[in-house]
Each structure stands twice: as C-alpha cells, then as structure tokens.
C-alpha cells in the first residue's frame, strides 16, 4: 500500500513537472514569436529610415542644384553692362562648373565665322577664328575647331568626357575641348561655349553641370545680346511708351 502511495506521489510529481515543462515551452515559443515580430518591425523601421535618409540626401542635392541655377541666372541677368555680363559668364564656368580653360565664341553678322569674345585660362590671342561651312588652311587645329563648328551648325552639345582626368597640354586651346555648348536666342544658335579643361580636382561632370549647361545655352546669349543692345542704345532705358507701343502692335 505504501509502495503504491509512493508510486502515485512520484507520478503526480512527474505530471506536475511535465506540465511545468509544457508551460515553459509554450512561453518560450510565445517569446520567440514576439522576438520575431519585433525583429520584423525593427527591419521595417530601418528600411523606412534608410528610405527617408536617401530621400533627404536626394532633396539636399536637388536643393543644391536649384541654388546653383538660381544664383547663376540671378547674376547673369543682374546687369546690362556687357563687360559685367562677360565677367559673370566667365565666373559662372570657373566657379560653379570648375572650368579651368574656356572660351565664348559668337558668330559674325554674316554667319561666316565664329569669333572668340572672352576667355579664361587660355590666351585670347591663341584662340583661332573658326570659319563656318568651309575648312580653312589658316586654322591650325582642325580637329578642335571642327567640334566647335559642328556644335554651332547642329545645335547639339558635344561632350568628350574621356579626356577628363587626363593631363592637359600647356596650351589648352590645342587640346580637344571637353565640352562645346550651343548658345541660343529663341531657336537660333548664335555662338558656342568651349570648355578646354577642368580644375585638377574635377575629373567628371556631375548632374548640376548639365543643368547649368542647359541654363547657359538658353540664357548666356540673351544676357550678352541684351547688354550689347543696351550699350548701343547708350544706356537709354525704354519708357512706358515703348511698352505701350508693343501692346498696340499686338
């Protein structure tokens, strides 16, 4: 009888122990499930945070591009003095794009040749006049001038990024340009911006450069021609009557 009671007690203890074990296992499973849920949530939050960080960086970059464009166009149109417009154009390429050597070419009235109007980092005297539509034996570097002429005639920008990062010669105007950009007034190309080399630390163009090139293509010639017309009119500003006449003309 005693044996049976002892055996029963043992069985009851074992049963209790098994029950406790089952509860413990259930608890562990529940906690593991909670941990997995929390880990999933952490990963989701991390992904959202990463998306926000990337978006923030993109927006900062976009803001920086817009600031560059705003400052460039603000400075370009802040004066009607041709000398200052030319200075702003040179500064824009040097400071915002990082161009070390560059020149601005404008076509003559007969559209027979392109003439350099201003330059930086390259001797103005060394810049050739570029005949349009016909090769000239006078032009020393046909390959360089051909690229400039083609951009003027087609209105399509030319980029030679392969040359970037390579050392430039002591006479930058002899090097193949790294970029040639058409300058337009309305739909007509009136000149070409030629970039021969960039600053040592700049080995490629970035997104903001292409945006600045687009802006320059559309605004550089307008600013320059507007300033020249103003200078030709001896700085006389048109009054209300001129605007009224425009309205009357429809």
């Amino acid at each position, binding site marked *: 009888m005693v044996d049976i009671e002892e055996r029963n007690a043992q069985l009851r203890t074992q049963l209790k122990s098994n029950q406790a074990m089952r509860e413990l296992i259930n608890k562990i499973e529940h906690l593991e499930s909670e941990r997995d849920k929390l880990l999933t949530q952490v990963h989701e939050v991390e992904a959202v945070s990463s998306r926000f960080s990337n978006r923030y*960086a993109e927006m900062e970059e976009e803001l*920086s591009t817009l*600031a560059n464009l705003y400052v*460039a166009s603000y400075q370009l149109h802040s004066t009607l003095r041709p000398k200052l417009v030319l200075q702003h154009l040179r*500064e824009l390429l040097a*400071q*915002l794009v*990082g161009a070390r050597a560059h020149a601005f070419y404008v076509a003559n009235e007969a559209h027979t040749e392109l003439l350099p109007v201003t330059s930086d980092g390259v001797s103005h005297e060394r810049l050739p006049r570029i005949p349009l539509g016909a090769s000239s034996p006078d032009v020393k570097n046909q390959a360089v001038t051909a690229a400039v002429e083609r951009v003027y005639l087609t209105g399509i920008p030319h980029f030679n990024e392969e040359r970037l990062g390579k050392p430039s010669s002591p006479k930058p105007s002899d090097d193949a340009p790294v970029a040639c950009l058409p300058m337009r007034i309305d739909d007509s190309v009136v000149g070409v911006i030629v970039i021969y080399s960039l*600053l040592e630390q*700049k080995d490629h163009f970035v997104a903001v450069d292409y945006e600045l090139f687009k802006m320059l293509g559309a605004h550089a010639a307008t600013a320059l021609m507007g300033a020249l017309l103003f200078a030709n009119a001896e700085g006389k500003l048109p009054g209300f009557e001129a605007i009224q006449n425009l309205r009357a003309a429809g």
Partner: protein
Amino acid sequence: MSAEYSCLVVEDSPMMRQLLVFALSRVKNLKVVEADDGVDGLRKLAAGKFDIILTDINMPIMDGLKLVKRIRIDPVHKDTPVIIITTEGSVEDRKRAIELGANAYITKPIQAPQVIAKVKELLKITGG
C-alpha cells in the same frame, strides 16, 4: 528666434558668395555676414565676434592666406575655426593652408551638402 552662431564669409566673387550664403542658410540658427575681400573681412572681424569663418584664397587687396595669418594673431578670433574655399586642389596648397592655421579645406566647385557638413562638424552641431 535670434541666431545662436555667427559666420563670416569672405569671398570676392558675388556669385560664389551668394551660393555660400544659400548653402549656409540651411544651417539652423546661423547668422551669416559677408565680406568681399580680406580687408573687408578684417573690418567685419573687428566689428563683431564670429564662431566660424569661411574664406577664399585668391582675392584682391588681401588674399585668404594672409587673412588666416591675421585671424590667428587676433585675440578674439585666434581659436575660431577657419574653412578655406578655393579653386586650388593640389596637396601643397592644402598643406600650406592647414600650416597657416586653417581647420578645413574645401575645393571649388563647392557642393552645398559638403559645406553644410563641414560647418556643422566644426561648430559641433548635431542633427538638422
């Protein structure tokens, strides 16, 4: 809200100055004062106390390196962080600027996020 920090930007190019002011306007509580060459910079330094100075190197009248030398002997600003902003990117130029007492060196063309990050780092500003 009044500005917590003040910054002096010394740059002769109006275009670059405007761009720097734009970039620095993204730093909260930072008041920016502009100077268009080294001498004008000295004048502004004599008239106020600045927490950080950004200067170009190539400027007429007084260049940025001379300005840094003057800043380092000015009792009010001798410990003020100076960032050099320049077109010269060679190691020698960088070394020379740091030897003269500049704390950081940024080459042109500038990227606004880079300028903001450097200013915040030197002013020990965390977050937005």
